[in-house]
Every structure is written in C-alpha cells, then in structure tokens.
C-alpha cells in the first residue's frame, strides 16, 4: 500500500456529516418526581406553569433542546401516574396538567420513576447513545402514606450504583426531609421566600449545565433561591 502513487481523490471523496447523523446523539435523562397528593392541590396551577416554563427554557437552550429528555411522574391519590413519558425537550409539546388528590404514595412514585429510568437507559444503551448521568428532582410536601421504605432503599441503591444525581425538596412544614435524606445527600427545604418558578428555573439551569459538561467532577451544587440545604 505504501508503494502506490498519489491516489486520485478529491475533497468530494470525504464522507460528509449529515444533520440526521444519530451517531452524534447524546442524552441527559431528567426525571421530575412530583407529590400530587391532596395537600398540593392549591399549588397545581403554579406547578403547571413552572413545568411549562421549565420546558420552554430547555427548548430555548441550543444544547438541552436536543440532549435533554424529560419525564414527569406524580404520586398521589394512592397511585403513581406517568404525567410525561421520557421525550426529548424538542418533542415535548406542552406541560402536563397536574391534578392533586388523596394521600402520598411515595414508594409507588419511586418505583415508577426508577422503572422508567432503567427502561430508558437500557434502550439508549442498546442504541449506543452516550448518556450523561441522569438527574432526578423530587418534590414532596408531606409524609409517605404507603409502605415506602423498601422502595426507598431500592431507589437509593440504584441511584448510587448507576450514578444518578438526585435532588430532593421538602415543601411546607409537614415535609419529611428525613425520608428524602434516605435517598440523597442533596436535600433542600423551602423557606418563606420559595417559589415553584424559581425551583424549576434552577432545574433548567442544572440541566443546561450538565448537558454541556464532560468531566468526572460532581456537579457543583449552588443552593437555589428560596431554599436551605438540609444536612442529612
């Protein structure tokens, strides 16, 4: 091969990249796990607006729009509800309407979230799509009303094993931050200046930052406005 003369080729012989080249796809899975028990009902419109804003802000981000896949799971009314299946932000048309009712089946919510994360990761891996560490954001205003402990243990183990970055927010006086602390060291408690809009804006910033990262460092956690970090 070394002995042949200069090959007769031009730049046109270089294979060109195309916009639909899936080999460049990258994903960051973002799971939002929301307490939609009856005690959250007065916040349902606010939650809807904050979710809509989160989606819009991610759509406005040139990188997150293609790489972030958002799913929303609610737990309330004695069941877990998939409010949005995983989909790239680009493909999300609107935010889910949130209907709050009943108790706080936290364990069911954790189980659903974990199953969805696991299924989606497996699917992406089977297609060879590189992933960033998934982000999980949990919001709850009360104590679990189901037999949550085994699910919490499974979730915490999976999060550690698979490198999920989990952030949990306790909202209101009845929020059980000890339960949240069994899942992650990143537990926050809402203060009087808290707003759902600020919390979801922080989520959007965190997603945008992760989708640009390439390092082994843990994400630097800035405490979002309107919350304090709880030692767990």
């Amino acid at each position: 091969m070394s002995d042949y003369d200069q090959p007769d080729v031009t730049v046109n012989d270089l294979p060109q990249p195309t916009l639909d080249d899936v080999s460049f796809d990258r994903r960051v899975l973002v799971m939002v796990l929301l307490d939609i028990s009856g005690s959250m009902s007065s916040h349902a419109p606010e939650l809807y607006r904050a979710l809509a804003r989160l989606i819009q802000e991610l759509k406005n981000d040139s990188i997150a729009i293609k790489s972030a896949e958002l799913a929303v799971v609610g737990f309330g009314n004695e069941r877990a509800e998939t409010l949005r299946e995983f989909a790239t932000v680009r493909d999300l048309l609107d935010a889910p309407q949130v209907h709050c009712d009943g108790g706080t089946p936290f364990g069911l919510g954790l189980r659903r979230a974990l199953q969805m994360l696991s299924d989606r990761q497996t699917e992406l891996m089977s297609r060879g799509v590189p992933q960033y560490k998934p982000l999980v954001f949990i919001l709850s205003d009360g104590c679990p009303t189901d037999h949550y402990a085994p699910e919490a243990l499974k979730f915490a183990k999976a999060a550690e094993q698979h490198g999920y970055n989990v952030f949990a927010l306790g909202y209101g006086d009845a929020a059980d931050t000890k339960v949240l602390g069994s899942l992650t060291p990143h537990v926050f408690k809402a203060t009087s200046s808290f707003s759902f809009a600020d919390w979801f804006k922080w989520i959007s910033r965190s997603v945008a930052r992760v989708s640009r990262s390439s390092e082994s460092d843990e994400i630097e956690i800035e405490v979002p406005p309107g919350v304090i970090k709880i030692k767990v």
Partner: protein
Amino acid sequence: MKKMKVIVPEPVTGSGHAADNKPCQDRVIHFSGTLLGSSVTIIGLADGAGSVSHSHIGAERVLDLGKSELTEERLLSSIVRKTKFPRLFSSLSSCRVFGIKTYEQMWPAVANDVVQEMQAELTRQSEQIGVSKKQLATTVILALIIDDFVFALRVGDGALAVQTTDGSIQSAFPPKTNSYINETSFITSRDYQVECAIFRNVESILATTDGCEPFFFNQMTGEPQSARLESFFKVAKNEAAESKIAAWLNSPTLRQITQDDLSLVIATRKTNHDNSD
C-alpha cells in the same frame, strides 16, 4: 521506510463554546524528524475539561514544548528530552533484535513517565498562574511513530485508529462505551489511567478528540467506521489534503450536530510522489 505526512488542521471551536464565549479547549501538535537514524513523527491531542476555568492552558501545557522559539530539529530534541523518549531510543537497537515483545514490555513504563512529566508541568503551571491543578484538567492522546511502529498513549477520552500496510483498520483506543459522558477522567484526576498501545506495519493513523469521535467510531461497539476512515486516509495522501480536511472540520453541518470543539490529526506514509519532492 517512507516518512510520514502529517495533516494537522487547526482545532475548531465548538458551537457550544462559541455561544458561551469560551475559548477552544482542544490543542494539537505534531513534530517530524530523524533521530538516531530512525524516522520519527509525534502527534498529540489534548482536550481541556469543559467546565473548569483554565483547561485550555492545561491542554496547551501538556503538549507545548516551546514551539515558537525552536527550530524543528531543536524542537524534536526538546520533546525527546522532556518526555524521556531517550529511554525508548536508547533501547531501540536491542528492541530491534528482540522484536515487539520488548517494546510491549517497555512502552507502558515510558508512557507512564511521559504522563508524570506532563503532570509535573501542570503542577508548575498551576503554581505559576495561581490556580488549582484541577482547573487545568485535560485529556491527552500522544502517538509516537518510529519507522513502522506506532507507540500510543491515552489518558481520558478521544480515540485513535490505525491502518496497517495490509489495509486493515483497527481501533487502537476506541471510544469509551461503558461510562457516562460526564465520567471522563483527566490527567489531573485522582483515578486517571494511562492506556498504552503498540502497532507495527503502520500505514496511517487518525486521532481525534471526542468532538469528531462519533463520526469515525461506532459509539456502541467502539469499532472504527472503516469506510469513512479509509476515505480520510486516501485524501490525506493527496495534495492540498490539509485544506480539504480543514474545510471538512469547519463544516457548518458538523458544527450543528455537535457542540464540542473539533480536532483531528492524520499521519500517513508519504507516497512515491511525495518522496520524490
């Protein structure tokens, strides 16, 4: 043994960095010459970590060996001195007698020495500019082509493909397929690993940072995209290859489908036409 022709386009700032007004964090180098009667080519690529403040300096320091002040000949002797390659060269004669096994035993030790020297340089640099060493985090791929051998090392990500004289193409360093993107290790990481590879009968090599990597390597299997690589190797032998490949690297489509900085280096045996120049 024909000398190598090296194509080293200027790295292209990724659209993500451009949008964030950040500098390109990729750096590339190459040197060619003759040492102790052997034809020697060295290529290097470094990809500074995205979120730390001075990684473009880190990438530069692990590769830069005083390029602006030295002639090529002096530069080569400088890189050889600084990277402790003399150990390799001084053993060259005996290795020729004992064959590739000796090289395989020797190269990992030399490669580790090279990386330690790079780390020492980053320590000096961090003290000089008053930032922590972590802020200089970078990956690195270095390939040393001596006669028909290539000795390569990698810390972190990026990939390297080798075409041998029988035309076959292999991944010397395939992309990392089993980790999250944000689990890349750097030369400054506590748990960094120095990966080593040796190939013989080398016709061409292509090294890339992670920006272009998906174009040249299957992201699921790590296998090289041989047809694409072969096209690049053929064009690399052609006249004006540098400008053609630079134009490819600057393609608006490429900059749209990835936000990463883009860099690649190709080294290929000169053709009869080149050698008669």
